[in-house]
């Protein structure tokens, strides 16, 4: 058996292109599956870590709860709308609430969202005994309006430091110079990295945001869309209840209310994960299609090689090699090709996932941890084996049927 394997390896080495190209195509198919599943897993892990680090309820306007969570905690997409600041006041006075954090978004600095909030934001913790999640690395927190604190990534990407000034622009994407507000912010602090999407944000006082929009109210619409025409609105409130029972009570009350809703990030993201899973399923189908094409390539390659090797096969048979042994040899060769592809696929797939995750994390500040997925391994070995056997079957039957005398003594 070892000798048969040796002959198969020598034969594959003797036809490097016909061996490597199919292996590479199988590898790309496997890589696609590996990358899809690894990225899917990484995005899930990243979203879970980024969206629910503080165990908060997100209170915001009625509408798409998933969008409310995505905008408030992952800083993705647009705000659902605004809620009156009175809701914040009521919650702050509620004994069932341990911490209440106002959030007002709607402006940006070269694409980095400007978040209006107060000192309570910097009291958010991953658990009650943990230190605050956001720590000042340079300077200090804002104490006056139009002072700003930069997240670590925003500081790096924008090249701004303590003492620098800037003007915000309306909206959440990078804007033209003509969109800039008149008010000038002064940077007073830079945060240490928190490995959350807030690393790419700019923080200032709520009043600063309100003032900017009061001045520009005539031409702005999105933020100052409060029902009463007031700009003293919030896009969301992060609420940290004192306990589980209180959390459920608050959620129930908001569920019954007409002016706002409360959302559990985990619950809303479960819906997002369903979407993600659907995307994965679609990409898996694409992966299977690519694998089918790879199988066809392996088949064609092995078929051609077998046709061109009929004399070699006849020589082996003339020396006592059985039909079964040449059949086994061809199947072994296709299996080597597909298993080599499986190995190549893992390397390419995980490498691609790491690179894509790094690019995505760099732009979104949502960490996408790529980890080895043992649960995927049986499938990723089984599929290339099945492809190898199926693709090698007809070439192996051809080899099995070679007429020794006809091939070696054609006259």
């Amino acid at each position: 058996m070892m000798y048969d394997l040796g002959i198969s390896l020598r034969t594959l080495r003797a036809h490097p292109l016909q061996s490597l190209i199919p292996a590479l195509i199988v590898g790309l198919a496997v890589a696609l599956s590996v990358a899809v599943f690894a990225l899917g897993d990484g995005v899930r892990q990243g979203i879970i870590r980024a969206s629910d680090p503080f165990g908060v309820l997100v209170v915001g306007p009625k509408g798409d709860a998933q969008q409310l969570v995505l905008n408030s905690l992952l800083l993705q997409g647009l705000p659902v709308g605004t809620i009156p600041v009175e809701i914040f006041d009521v919650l702050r006075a509620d004994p069932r609430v341990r911490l209440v954090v106002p959030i007002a978004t709607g402006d940006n600095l070269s694409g980095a969202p400007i978040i209006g909030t107060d000192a309570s934001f910097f009291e958010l913790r991953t658990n009650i005994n943990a230190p605050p999640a956001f720590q000042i690395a340079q300077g200090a927190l804002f104490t006056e309006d139009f002072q700003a604190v930069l997240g670590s990534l925003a500081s790096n990407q924008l090249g701004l430091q303590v003492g620098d000034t800037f003007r915000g622009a309306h909206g959440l994407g990078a804007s033209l110079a003509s969109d800039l507000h008149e008010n000038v912010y002064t940077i007073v602090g830079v945060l240490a990295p928190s490995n959350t999407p807030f690393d790419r944000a700019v923080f200032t006082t709520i009043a600063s945001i309100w003032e900017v929009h009061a001045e520009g109210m005539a031409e702005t619409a999105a933020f100052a869309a409060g029902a009463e025409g007031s700009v003293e609105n919030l896009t969301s409130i992060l609420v940290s209840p004192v306990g589980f029972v209180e959390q459920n009570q608050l959620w129930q009350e908001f569920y019954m209310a007409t002016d706002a809703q409360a959302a559990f990030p985990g619950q809303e993201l479960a819906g997002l994960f369903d979407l993600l899973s659907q995307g994965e399923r679609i990409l898996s189908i694409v992966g299977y299609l690519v694998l089918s094409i790879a199988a066809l390539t392996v088949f064609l390659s092995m078929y051609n090689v077998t046709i061109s090797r009929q004399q070699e096969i006849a020589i082996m048979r003339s020396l006592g090699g059985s039909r079964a042994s040449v059949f086994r040899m061809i199947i072994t060769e296709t299996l080597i090709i597909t298993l080599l592809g499986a190995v190549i696929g893992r390397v390419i797939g995980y490498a691609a996932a790491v690179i894509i995750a790094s690019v995505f994390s760099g732009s979104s500040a949502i960490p996408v941890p790529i980890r080895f997925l043992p649960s995927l391994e049986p499938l990723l070995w089984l599929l290339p084996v099945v492809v190898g056997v199926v693709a090698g079957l007809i070439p192996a039957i051809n080899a099995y049927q070679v007429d020794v005398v006809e091939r070696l003594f054609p006259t």
Partner: protein
Amino acid sequence: MILRLDGVSHTYRTPSGDARTVLQIDEWTLASGDHVLLRGVSGSGKTTLFNIIAGLLRPTQGVVACDQTVLYNLPEAQRDRFRARMIGYVFQNHYLLPQLTALENVVMPMAFARKDAPKTWSDTALSLLDRLGLREFAAYRPSQLSTGQRLRVAVARALAVRPPVLLADEPTAALDPESAVVVMDLLQRLCRENDAILIVASHDPALSDRFGHVVNLRAGKLSNEHAQAGQALPVQAVFSVESQIQ
């Protein structure tokens, strides 16, 4: 060991549908140690005869037997095993596997025959190559060897499992006279050592003196050349006499 062909004939259909008999042997018996030169023009049936003896081509009629084993009564897989263990075949075109080294080519029949333990294969093959003056070329591929060297590798491969029957089809055809002498010396010496039946098919008249038995194959029929001029005896008669003398 006794190799016996009894009433063996082979007929095939021409493209026009006619039946053409290319081999017709009433009886031919060879014993261990017999060295036979088989002479005949192209198309006389030499290769057909070799292929029938090797178990590669089922004759239209007749029996091929080694001792008590009737070759074509065996299922194909057993016939393959028989060929691997009992028959050495030196092809006119050498037919070495191009992707394998000289050593690996020699090892191949041992892997098919499974007569010896795998750990001995390389040593046996190297020893044979050494005796054929090819030890330093053991790692060379056929494309890196001369025609004479390739032939010697083919001889080593044919002898690798010490087969009781060795068939050599025009082994000296592509060699200069000096190389032909070296190869034939080796072939005969190694077959004597193994007490093997050696049948060499060749046009080369220079080989006649090396063989006690020279048989002609004309139109598929065997006759003995060493009989009185113009009175070729049937082959079976000659070997019967030889057997009685022995």
